[in-house]
């Protein structure tokens, strides 16, 4: 392939990756992205015939100034977001360079701009899409840099920097400079580049000062956890497979019921087909001896669940069913631990305040005895709140009395739950007929008899209230698909669910009236698409955990693991071995993988250093044939130095031998013999009788060891 063609292709690849990086996140409007894409493609057809025309560069310079002025105007007059304007301008700069790719210097500009785009994208996205672009850069950058350097050298040596000249053009058109071997070899550089990048990333001290922190990037919007929720909101997202919560049981055992129930928030006020929450002043919720206690501190036998919660628009802390306590690790800021700020409102509405655009990771301790029961005391004043109804609802009350029958509040609540869920009168459906101005609940209960979870939970909560049982509508997630790649249970947006908590026998108890058919309508669980989705999500999770959320704590613990691993390799004392083994078990294959990678990297660096040292030594010792002589003479010098007869830098070997003799050294004849042999071999190419000379060297050493005074 011609160097010129290959270089242009690789330049376009890198510039494309840079523009792709700019388009991550939502800062670049679709129209701007489309225009930039058109410019990117359009520049392909621009060649020397066009860019050598007079006025071409002036036209682009004028266009650039005009575009900048337009951006400033949009910013000041129309209040367009500064970040968007900056991203658009950065993209335009690259497109203008692509229209000017005359010489190596222009390609260097393209390459620098692409790198700036990659840097800018760090504030636009932290997702797996950034990882993909980044790895694209790791692959393409060696090609780009190598080709640009070659081209620059050709232009410098066969022309002038501004004008490549005919000879340079001829060389650049040559097919003999770069071929498949060059491409493969340069592409192979991506591997050491990647390993070195990983090493630098892991080892660079995480002592962020936070002076220029860009803060929150913004979370994903999930309906049902804000101040209110309208009937119908959840149904539409049932098929959304986007994973938002990951649950990783410490013991590797999945949930007993086959799914996790993660409680988000609750609503106490129902009016006009809409649930809302009574406003209360939030209270700080701090840890007690390291745990955020819900019922009690964790005990032996409690199961530990690690929860990784994607940043959502509503910063709700989700609590698994049966949780007795949570442990929310502090953030590391400015190299110190900063406790997370959590707060709670009545109705067990738990939220975190210090969202930083990164996933929230916390541990939940779950006990079977606490399953289905929640610690949220109900005062006498609050009872009225949980019995609120939008009106008399006579038909609903009559129906509730009929279906609930007689008995304790719990028995009556269970009967109503069973009637809605199991009687077969009601069908789970994501589609609802248009209710017009009528109350959607009455339409659901008496006419349509079909709906999704919100209708079922609303029906049960309202019916319970009509018969005097305090109740509330709860939203959260119910589900969890095992992700074999990431070894966690993935809870998706489609697993969002709504159920009921009723105050029975002095505690809030969970009731879920939604028919089991809900489980059949979730996100697809099989097929290659689901597998691919699971793989992608596992990658996204690893990226988020190991890269985006990497901090000083993990850095220190990683180094400690590496140290313990090394000690275990060397056969350290049993206690350390046991510790290392425990750590290794806890960290699983990932820990071993990191350790192995670090060891390989260390080994590679050591080998490189050794090679370098050998080469320098070889250079210092001269040609291979004379190295034996050089080493022999070096040994002689060392022996004499120990005896107090060092050779000054300005003295020749022969002069040194004579001075040793003059000093009365008893093995002076051996020194003369070795010196003569050395000179003859080093400068005359004579053969060395090494065994004999080594014997003479031993004589010198023996004489050196003797006391000079004797």
């Amino acid at each position: 392939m011609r160097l010129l063609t290959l270089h242009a292709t690789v330049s376009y690849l890198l510039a494309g990756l840079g523009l792709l990086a700019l388009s991550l996140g939502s800062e670049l409007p679709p129209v701007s992205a489309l225009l930039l894409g058109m410019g990117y493609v359009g520049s392909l057809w621009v060649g020397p015939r066009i860019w050598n025309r007079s006025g071409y560069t002036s036209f682009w310079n004028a266009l650039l100034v005009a575009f900048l002025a337009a951006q400033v105007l949009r910013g000041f007059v129309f209040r367009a977001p500064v970040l968007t304007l900056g991203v658009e301008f950065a993209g335009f700069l690259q497109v203008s360079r692509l229209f000017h790719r005359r010489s190596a210097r222009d390609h260097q500009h393209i390459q620098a701009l692409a790198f700036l785009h990659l840097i800018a994208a760090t504030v636009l996205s932290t997702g797996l899409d950034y990882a993909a672009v980044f790895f694209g850069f790791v692959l393409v950058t060696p090609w780009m840099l190598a080709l640009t350097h070659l081209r620059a050298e050709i232009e410098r040596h066969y022309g002038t920097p501004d004008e490549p000249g005919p000879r340079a053009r001829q060389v650049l058109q040559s097919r003999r400079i770069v071929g498949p071997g060059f491409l493969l070899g340069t592409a192979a550089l991506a591997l050491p580049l990647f390993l070195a990048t990983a090493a630098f990333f892991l080892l660079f001290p995480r002592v962020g000062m936070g002076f220029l922190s860009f803060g929150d990037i913004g979370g994903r919007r999930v309906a049902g956890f804000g101040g209110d929720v309208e009937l119908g909101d959840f149904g539409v997202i049932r098929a959304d497979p986007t994973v938002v919560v990951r649950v990783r049981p410490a013991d590797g055992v999945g949930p007993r019921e086959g799914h996790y129930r993660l409680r988000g928030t609750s609503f106490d006020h129902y009016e006009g087909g809409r649930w809302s929450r009574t406003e209360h002043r939030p209270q700080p919720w701090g840890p007690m001896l390291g745990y955020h206690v819900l019922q009690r501190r964790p005990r032996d036998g409690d199961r530990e669940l690690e929860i990784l919660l994607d940043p959502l628009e509503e910063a709700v802390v989700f609590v698994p069913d049966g949780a007795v306590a949570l442990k929310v690790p502090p953030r590391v800021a400015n190299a110190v631990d900063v406790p997370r700020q959590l707060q709670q409102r009545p109705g067990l509405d738990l939220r975190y305040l210090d969202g930083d655009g990164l996933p929230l990771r916390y541990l939940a301790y779950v006990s079977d005895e606490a399953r289905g029961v929640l610690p949220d005391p109900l005062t006498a004043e609050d009872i009225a709140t949980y019995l609120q109804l939008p009106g008399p609802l006579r038909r609903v009350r009559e129906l509730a009395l009929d279906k609930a029958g007689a008995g304790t509040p719990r028995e009556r609540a269970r009967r109503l739950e069973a009637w809605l869920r199991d009687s077969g009168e009601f069908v789970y459906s994501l589609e609802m007929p248009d209710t017009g101005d009528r109350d959607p609940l009455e339409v659901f209960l008496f006419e349509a008899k079909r709906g999704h979870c919100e209708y079922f939970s609303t029906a049960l909560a309202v019916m319970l209230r009509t018969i005097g049982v305090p109740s509330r509508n709860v939203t959260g997630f119910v589900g969890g698909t095992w992700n074999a790649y990431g070894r966690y249970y993935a809870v998706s947006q489609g697993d969002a669910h709504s159920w009921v908590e009723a105050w029975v026998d002095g505690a809030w108890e969970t009731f879920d009236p939604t028919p089991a058919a809900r489980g059949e309508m979730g996100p697809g669980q099989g097929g290659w698409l689901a597998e691919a989705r699971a793989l992608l999500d596992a990658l996204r999770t690893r990226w988020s955990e190991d890269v985006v959320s990497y901090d000083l704590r993990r850095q220190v613990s990683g180094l400690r693991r590496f140290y313990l691993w090394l000690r275990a390799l060397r056969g350290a004392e049993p206690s350390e071995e046991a510790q290392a083994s425990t750590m290794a078990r806890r960290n699983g294959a990932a820990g071993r993988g990191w350790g192995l990678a670090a060891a390989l990297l260390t080994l590679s660096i050591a080998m490189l250093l050794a090679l370098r040292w050998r080469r320098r030594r070889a250079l210092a010792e001269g040609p291979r044939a004379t190295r034996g002589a050089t080493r022999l003479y070096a040994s002689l010098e060392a022996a004499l130095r120990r005896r107090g007869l060092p050779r000054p830098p300005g003295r020749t070997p022969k002069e040194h031998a004579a001075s040793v003799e003059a000093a009365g050294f008893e093995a002076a004849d051996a020194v003369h013999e070795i010196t003569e042999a050395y000179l003859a071999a080093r400068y005359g190419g004579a053969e060395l009788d090494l065994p004999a000379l080594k014997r003479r060297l031993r004589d010198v050493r023996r004489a050196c060891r003797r006391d000079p005074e004797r």
Partner: protein
Amino acid sequence: MVTVGVGLAAVNTGNNLLYLVLGLMLSLLLVSGTLSDVALWRVRISRRLPHHAFAQTPFVVELTLRNTKRRLPSYALEVEDRALDEAKGERSCFFLKISPGDSQAATYRRTAPRRGWQRFGTVTVRTRYPFGLIEKGRSLPLAGDLLVYPKLRAVDARTLHVFGVGEETPSRCAGERGEVWGVREYRSGDEARSIHWFRSAATDRLVVREQTSSTRSQLTLLLDQAEPAHVDDDARERWHRAFEDAVSLTASVADAALRRAIAVEVRVRGAISPRVAPGAPPDPIFRFLALLTSVSAAVAPPPPTAPTSAGRTMRVPVDPAVEATDREVA
């Protein structure tokens, strides 16, 4: 600079993605430095100097690079060849690609500032390949000596006339170049037309014809290299300049005389150059003059004297008061 900027931004913000970009940039530097070493690894170099060179006159040096690596080509190598008395070398040779096991030669022009030995010690091979971020170089010992002859200048007819050279008729005189005297081995500077091709082919060595010459056509140039005591450094510098001009003029006149079939000999204090017969290369005279050094007048041998045999004798003046351009006609 960009790397430092990204590093500062990463430390300030604590943004791990910036740390990642910083890692990539540092890795590029690391890999670039390492691979530059690999490009220089097992590269052998040799130098071919010209047979003769004249001071202040460009000449060509040939450098040959051999890549003894088995699989990896070496790209974009620059060679800096530096004489021992040079402060800064000339980076004149560029090798774009040397395939594994292959060798390439390139030439560059250099100019020796003065006559005498020009000694070469090391050759430095540099490269910034593959990424152009870090330059690596290796100095390879490559000794070489080149005897630089005095600068030859154009000598006009008037000057030649002053030296008595113009009186000889330079061409188209029967026997003017003498009869064939014998043959000898080719020496640097011999004219191609004097090569005895049949004998050369038979012996597989270049052999030239030697010719007889008339004893009437002989020129002896007397040059006094005794350096007087100087009153100051300025005077010393002027004298040395004049002396170098005189050496240059001597070499130029000798060359012109030899071209006109006049045998030449140079005499200085304490030494006499070989007598070069017409038709023979002037190298013995040039070599003699290239290595000529001044001596203090206080300890110098007696001044050179004219030979007793026939022929013309001319003294080349060393006069600091006369500019070089005027000296030719003085």
